[in-house]
């Protein structure tokens, strides 16, 4: 093993500016780690704890130690956890002791690193009940500790709460942690560092405070301390305290009624007078309240009963007369050029965002509170007032009913079109174009009774938008967005679209925008292609000839991106982005033209288009790869069996896609496209199935692949089986056990949370679709016999997911369909088994009386198939 001196030197060398030295040191560290893990970790902990060592080597020691305990990738994280748990107890005890000791170091950075490492160890050990004394030892005589140790201890408690889940910490410990934290926040605490650390720790610990928030006295105390901390002379403490309030707004919404008046006063003062960092948090508090109320109102549709989980307290509505003026004031505090900086975020933007949420939470009621402000300021000489008025108007367009807004919007429309052409301010034009987009998004479309866009003004609107697309990039980008929503509103217009007379001009203008030299600024080019896509998607047969003319144009552009000479990495990135946009555009066009009556003419471009897509794969960019793959899926559907001719060349990219674990979106999209190809080629896909199935099975067994790709892989088994029928025989021995074990897992994985339940259901759906495809694929084949042994398990799976009572409607439909497929394919062989299953009785009856007609239909089919199976 290495002696301590060598470790120090290695850690310092690993930060050397000399590349060779650095590389050498990194290699040695790796070697050390691989030869003697326990010794390595122990040396690092020792280094970190040793006050005689240089700060730099100690910090890096802590960082390497932390990285040895946690990783971003799930599978890697799992490995590290297992590795730590398998270390011998003596080593772990020593490391823990070093870590705790470090908390009293005089060096702040080192203490902070130790806090984080302790939390990581706790994250692994507390769920295993392996470091039960940790909380106790952190809290013992916390009051007697010197300030810097107290600060480090509170910080550690904060990280600990962030790292571990509340259910592994006993309530007694939770109470102690909260007591220590809240006392540390108290105004009586003289040291600002301690008070700040405590306030930040509370932010992390709020999720643990469920029981304490249910207790009136404890809640009052916590709330009082938090509110007091918002008045601290130290700006960082005020900011951290408001962060706590924001978190409380969403976590404990239903407990807030008693404190709202005080909180309003505090937030109003902060918004008007405090530092921007604090004011932003104060606005965020109201945004969070609105988020909660919007969710509640959406969930219950405004109907509350005693049974409702969380009632709506209408805090926003009550605060309206004071809150709206407060937010309107913020709109006047714009920064110069905020529209040119994509990352900009300031009090005016936050205020407008909050105003938009308020409108959604209270609906019609907001209008009278905002209109006077708009009317007063919209024509003022100062651009700030005109912009603020326009922004206020744009912000409240979602929420109030169309009836309430229609007259105002109609009156404003001409004014805004005028402002777009004449206003000298870039800001005003930017916000005006954005507001037009919001008008079209929320108040234009088939569901709106009185149309905003009429024959009388359509021409003018389009002319102005097209002209605005020639304005500065940020303004032009908003105009493209407005056009996007304008087109979207005509999505189900029928055979005659009002856009038809302008179609050619719109397409040409959008292409011209995409070709502007400054099109890469303000994401203008992306916005132009997005608008183009939407215009194509919502176009009608009247204009299909013009869409057809677009095909060679876009293909030529794609071709040009592939001819590029040597590019800098920055240029290459832009190039790849453009390829992605062009492939996306072609995908939309394929979907539009790939069916009757345009299919025949369109498909004449197919060979060339396919050639381009294959070359895009060669560029090795994930985004472009994904887009090209999606486009090919659409093309396969349009081409049908003719797609077979592309398979020899295309196959290797399919395989490449399936092997792309890291960019899992590419993998997921590829799996979907295999489904498209199966349906297009049917049994002509057979020669490729060995390769595809091998890769899919590998994907399923990998713990590196993102879990969201697994359900679609199962569905893909079904697609393949349906396409190749009884030829699926040779994959039965591999796929069925995989399906079976996944089924067992998913049957009882009843989710701890909504996300888990959702995933479980998507997994079930994938498994069931696989079964459906396999059964239907084998139907009427003599090899049906092969499936009989699997029937009992499948029926059991159906029964158990029925009994879990947590399946969604999609699973319900697929599951009852599988019951029918099983009966249909295996017939009398399984008649008895089926009759014994719960699924064939209660579950079937439940589905038969479902309100969802697709479930009912699937159930009728199953009933029919079962009747035949039993009667034979």
């Amino acid at each position, binding site marked *: 093993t290495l002696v301590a001196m060598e470790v120090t030197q290695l850690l310092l060398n690993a930060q050397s500016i000399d590349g060779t030295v650095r590389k050498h040191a990194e290699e040695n560290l790796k070697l050390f780690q691989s030869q003697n893990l326990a010794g390595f970790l122990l040396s690092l902990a020792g280094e970190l704890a040793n006050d005689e060592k240089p700060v730099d080597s100690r910090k890096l020691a802590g960082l390497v130690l932390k990285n040895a305990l946690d990783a971003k990738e799930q599978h890697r994280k799992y490995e590290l956890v297992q590795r730590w748990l398998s270390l011998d107890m003596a080593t772990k005890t020593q490391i823990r002791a070093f870590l705790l000791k470090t908390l009293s170091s005089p060096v702040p950075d080192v203490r902070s690193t130790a806090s984080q490492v302790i939390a990581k160890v706790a994250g692994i050990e507390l769920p295993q009940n392996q470091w039960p004394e940790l909380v106790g030892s952190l809290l013992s005589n916390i009051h007697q500790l010197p300030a810097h140790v107290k600060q480090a201890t509170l910080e550690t408690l904060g990280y600990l709460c962030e790292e571990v889940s509340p259910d592994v910490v006993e309530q007694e410990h939770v109470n102690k942690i909260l007591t220590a934290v809240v006392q540390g926040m108290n105004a009586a605490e003289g040291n600002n560092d301690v008070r700040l650390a405590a306030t930040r720790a509370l932010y992390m610990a709020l999720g643990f405070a469920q029981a304490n928030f249910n207790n009136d006295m404890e809640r009052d105390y916590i709330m009082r301390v938090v509110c007091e901390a918002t008045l601290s002379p130290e700006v960082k403490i005020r900011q951290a305290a408001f962060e706590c309030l924001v978190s409380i707004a969403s976590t404990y919404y239903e407990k807030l009624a008693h404190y709202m008046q005080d909180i309003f006063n505090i937030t109003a003062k902060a918004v008007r007078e405090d530092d921007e960092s604090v004011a932003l948090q104060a606005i965020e508090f109201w945004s969070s309240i609105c988020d909660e109320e919007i969710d509640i109102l959406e969930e219950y549709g405004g109907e509350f009963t005693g049974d409702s989980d969380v009632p709506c307290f209408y805090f926003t509505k009550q605060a309206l007369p004071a809150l709206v003026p407060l937010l309107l004031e913020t709109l006047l505090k714009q920064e110069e050029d905020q529209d040119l900086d994509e990352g900009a975020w300031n009090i005016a933007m936050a205020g407008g965002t909050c105003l938009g949420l308020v409108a959604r939470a209270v609906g019609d009621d907001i209008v009278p509170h905002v209109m006077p402000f708009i009317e007063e300021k919209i024509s003022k000489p100062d651009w700030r007032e005109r912009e603020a008025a326009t922004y206020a108007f744009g912000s409240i367009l979602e929420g109030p009913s169309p009836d309430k807004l229609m007259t105002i919007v109609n009156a404003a429309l001409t004014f805004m079109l005028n402002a777009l052409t004449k206003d000298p301010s870039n800001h005003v034009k930017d916000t005006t174009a954005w507001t037009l987009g919001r008008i079209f998004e929320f108040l234009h479309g088939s569901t709106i009774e009185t149309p905003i866009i009429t024959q009388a003004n359509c021409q003018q609107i389009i002319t102005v938008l097209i002209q605005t697309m020639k304005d500065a990039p940020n303004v032009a980008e908003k105009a493209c967005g407005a056009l996007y929503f304008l087109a979207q509103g005509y999505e189900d217009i029928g055979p005659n679209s009002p856009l038809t007379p302008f179609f050619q001009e719109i397409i040409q203008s959008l292409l011209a925008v995409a070709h502007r030299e400054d099109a890469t600024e303000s994401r203008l080019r992306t916005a132009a292609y997005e608008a183009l896509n939407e215009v194509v998607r919502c176009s009608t047969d009247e204009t299909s000839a013009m869409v057809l003319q677009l095909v060679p144009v876009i293909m030529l552009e794609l071709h040009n991106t592939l001819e590029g000479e040597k590019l800098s990495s920055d240029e290459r990135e832009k190039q790849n982005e453009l390829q992605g946009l062009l492939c996306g555009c072609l995908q939309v066009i394929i979907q539009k033209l790939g069916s009757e009556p345009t299919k025949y003419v369109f498909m004449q471009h197919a060979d060339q288009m396919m050639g381009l897509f294959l070359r895009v794969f060669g560029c090795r960019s994930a985004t472009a790869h994904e887009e090209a793959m999606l486009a090919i899926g659409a093309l396969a559907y349009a081409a049908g*069996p003719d797609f077979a001719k592309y398979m020899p060349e295309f196959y290797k990219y399919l395989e490449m896609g399936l092997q792309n674990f890291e960019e899992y*979106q590419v993998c997921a999209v590829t799996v979907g496209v295999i489904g498209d190809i199966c349906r297009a080629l049917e049994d002509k896909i057979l020669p490729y199935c060995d390769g595809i199935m091998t890769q899919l099975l590998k994907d399923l067994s990998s713990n590196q692949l993102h879990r969201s790709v697994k359900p679609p892989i199962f569905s893909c088994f079904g697609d393949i089986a349906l396409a190749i029928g009884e030829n699926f025989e040779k994959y039965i021995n591999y796929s069925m056990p995989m399906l079976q074990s996944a089924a067992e897992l998913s049957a009882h994985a009843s989710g701890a949370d909504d996300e888990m339940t959702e995933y479980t259901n998507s997994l079930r759906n994938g498994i069931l679709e696989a079964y459906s495809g396999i059964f239907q*694929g084998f139907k009427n084949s003599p090899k049906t016999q092969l499936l009989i042994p699997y029937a009992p398990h499948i029926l059991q799976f159906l029964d158990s997911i029925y009994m879990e009572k947590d399946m969604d409607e999609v699973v319900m439909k697929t599951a009852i369909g599988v019951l029918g497929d099983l009966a249909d394919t295996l017939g009398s062989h399984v008649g008895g088994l089926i009759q014994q299953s719960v699924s064939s009785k209660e579950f079937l009856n439940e589905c038969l009386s479902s309100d969802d007609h697709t479930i009912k239909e699937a159930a009728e089919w199953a009933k029919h198939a079962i009747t035949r199976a039993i009667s034979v």
Partner: protein
Amino acid sequence: MAPHDLRRPFKRRPISDQQKRRDLSLLRQSQHRSDAQQRARNLASSVISLQSPSSPDADPETLPEPMPDVDTAGHESEASSFSIRQASSLRGPEARKWFASQLMLPEWMIDVPENLSRDWYVLARPAGKRCFVVSTDGVTVSRLRNGSVLHHFPSALPGGARKKGVSGPAQSYSILDCIFHEADQTYYVIDMVCWRGYSLYECTAEFRFFWLQSKLDETGACDPPSFYHKFRFSVVPFYNCDQSGLHSAYTGSLPYVKDGLLFYNKHAHYHTGNTPLVLIWKDERCSQYVIDTDNNGQVPSQQHIVLELQDDGKIVTSDDPPVVVNCLNADFVKQSGLSPGSLVRFAIGDGGLNCVDGKFEKADLQYISVSNRARAFADSYSKIMFQYMARHSPLKVEDLASMISQENQQDKPPEVEMSD
């Protein structure tokens, strides 16, 4: 512990068209997957019965290549690709024979079936053109019994119009058995054969009628005509064939002109061709056309019938197996220029018809001519007999009613006196 990022993309909302494309692709894929499954599920029941031996002309080998616009999906297997959609491309006599063989044809009621009130439905048949209405791939086509197209139109039936957002798999089809009633330009639906690609051939009439009642209305097909829906569809009311049901069907006031009563056996599947499990009955009160008319619309003084000439000179009905009515001698066949397969028109002479157990003992036939070319089939036995009876001793509505009331008395449990 840096403060968390508060930025919300309000004014700079990224539309993320890429995510939209991804979502739309997933949606398309899952729709196509469920279409493919749906098709597979229907393969056995619908397509095979469409090609059942009763329609020998429907041999895929003899059919023309599918038109490119018919097989849009191109992903159906051999067996399924010979479906309604392909049949739509048939022309001339093939089309006529194929479609004619797809309809369930009622026999004429020449005696009253047993258990009328328990096992049968009755409905008033609308006067008009019997047709098959097929909706698929965004278009609806109605074809008459002889296979010729009546209308080609958009409808609110599943897949019946080229319109976005219509639910149901794009490639699936629905088939309705209808009568087109000219006066109110309405398709009266008398039976449902396939719905959203789900075959009802193997289902009982009881189920088909239930399905028809519950499904048709959902689609908006019963709404008044509109741009995407050229003709209104309407379900013909049906009744259990008890006293009150029979009365309602026979005398009830309906929006259409009646042409006789149809009787459906509740347990019968949809059987293509003639079936004794669906019966038609008429009298003057409920039909303008009780006794057949000639080409000029006049009731001829003698009953006319059309029969098919076989190889051996026998002249037979259209039944399966055919019923022999008489035999023509070879010289006569030669003289009249007849050939096997010809449909020949005869008048029934004063000697009349006499039959025992469904066979003709004696038939006084007088040759008229070869039948006109529009006809695809000879008359059936039951039709000949019903027409004959109508001229001589018709089956009356009272006969039906009295049969029902007899059944009811039999069904009544014997009265038992309770005594304590």
